[in-house]
């Protein structure tokens, strides 16, 4: 069986082989493009959509009024709100109070529609992207987890 091998020019082969070696040698002295996670973390862009945060206003109350628009707009149905009507209105005149506000992080697709839908700008997305957990139950974030200050684990 005749082998149809291409004609090889020896000199060009050797020159190209040496050029390949020089390219690799050059890369030896170039700085690494990797980050030593978790001691060095990536600096995210400004509009990065990470974990949701529910904002509080100056008096310490949540800005959320329980309208449910974020839950309605969520494409993955990750937000679940239950509200309660109080007997007496509170200081601002609202009588509807948010009882539970739960975001299921394992369902959330981090699209940011809830932020766009909120009429009171009560929800925003922070730059936290480290939400890995060991079990499904801890992926369900309720109200205090969403308003609490983020704590970033420090490694040596």
């Amino acid at each position: 069986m005749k082998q149809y091998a291409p004609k090889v020019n020896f000199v060009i082969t050797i020159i190209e082989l040496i050029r390949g070696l020089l390219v690799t040698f050059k890369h030896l002295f170039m700085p690494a493009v990797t980050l030593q996670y978790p001691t060095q973390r990536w600096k995210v862009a400004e509009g990065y959509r990470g974990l949701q945060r529910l904002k509080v206003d100056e008096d310490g109350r949540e800005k959320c009024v329980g309208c449910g628009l974020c839950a309605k707009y969520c494409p993955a149905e990750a937000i679940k709100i239950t509200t309660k009507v109080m007997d007496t209105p509170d200081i601002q005149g609202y009588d509807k109070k948010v009882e539970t506000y739960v975001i299921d992080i394992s369902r959330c697709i981090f699209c940011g529609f809830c932020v766009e839908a909120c009429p009171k700008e009560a929800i925003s997305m922070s730059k936290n992207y480290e939400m890995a957990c060991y079990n499904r139950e801890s992926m369900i974030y309720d109200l205090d987890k969403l308003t609490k200050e983020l704590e970033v684990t420090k490694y040596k």
Partner: protein
Amino acid sequence: MQFLYDTQLLVNNIHSFLFGMCSLYGLPVVLVTIVAMVITVALVGGFISVNVMLLVLAERKIAGHIQDRLGPMRVGPHGILQTVADAIKLLLKESIRPKIADKWAYFFAPVIVMAPAIMTYLIIPWSPGLIIRDLNLGLLYLLAVSSLGVIGIILAGWSSGNKYSLLGGLRSGAQIVSYEVAMSLSVIGVIMLCGSLKISEIVEAQQYCWYVVKQPLAFFLFIIAATAECNRAPFDLPEAESELVAGFHTEYGGIKFAMFFLAEYANMFVASAMGATLFLGGWQGLPILGLALPPLVWFLLKTYLIVFVFIWFRWTYPRIRVDQLMSFGWKVLLPLAFLNIGITGLVMVLG
């Protein structure tokens, strides 16, 4: 550190001390010889272990830097203790054997691969006089003993009971045998120039001119053949990770795998040492730098330079296919080796 500069004197002193002790205290010569042998074996074994750790780490770090990343960084400062951790892990693994594997062949194959790799350390010239045994046919011994490793590889491939391992073992055997022919022929040019197979004479004959200047083609062929001998890229199809799972050492784990690994790096060191000795002048130093380094340091520098070249080749070139490999070995390297011998002979005859 002054003793490093004059190791011939050091070795003579140690010899006379040992045999003087023996005549003084009436100890039989045999006992002293055996003690000396045991110490030598321990030193060589210790050097091989440390060397393999260094080489594995160097390979991973250099591979990382060539690929614009950093290599191991976690274990120890900048990953220095990585190989120690790997060695401990390998030693603590359970030693299993496939049921279909041939029991004794499976057990002895790593030993048969490892033993010749260590035996070749006998004739490495570290320094003037610091050779374990300066055989009159040192070079022939080297070529002969390094051929014995093939038996172990084929046995390992066969006894694993795995078709892919068998294929890997056979391919490796064919490759090593073919490139050994090319390697031996490229070394013949050096022997012709020097007139002797004795390693210390070859090193001393390079006093005024290293043989790489007189025989560049032979050096080039030797480097290529040595990378094929050690089953290293770009000729590492038999043990390639993505081709044949791991080739002939697929079914081996734990200490047995550690033996194969050690043998490969030990072989690589010996091949580099031989390249440095035969072509780069061994322990001869260059006077141009002005600083007087001990000959041992020159030798190690040259050897590790060639080791670096091997590592550099591995992470630059793609793997070549086994039929391309065989055709390269027989159809390209062998004629070039003959050409080299012919030219050397002609030049020597014509003056």
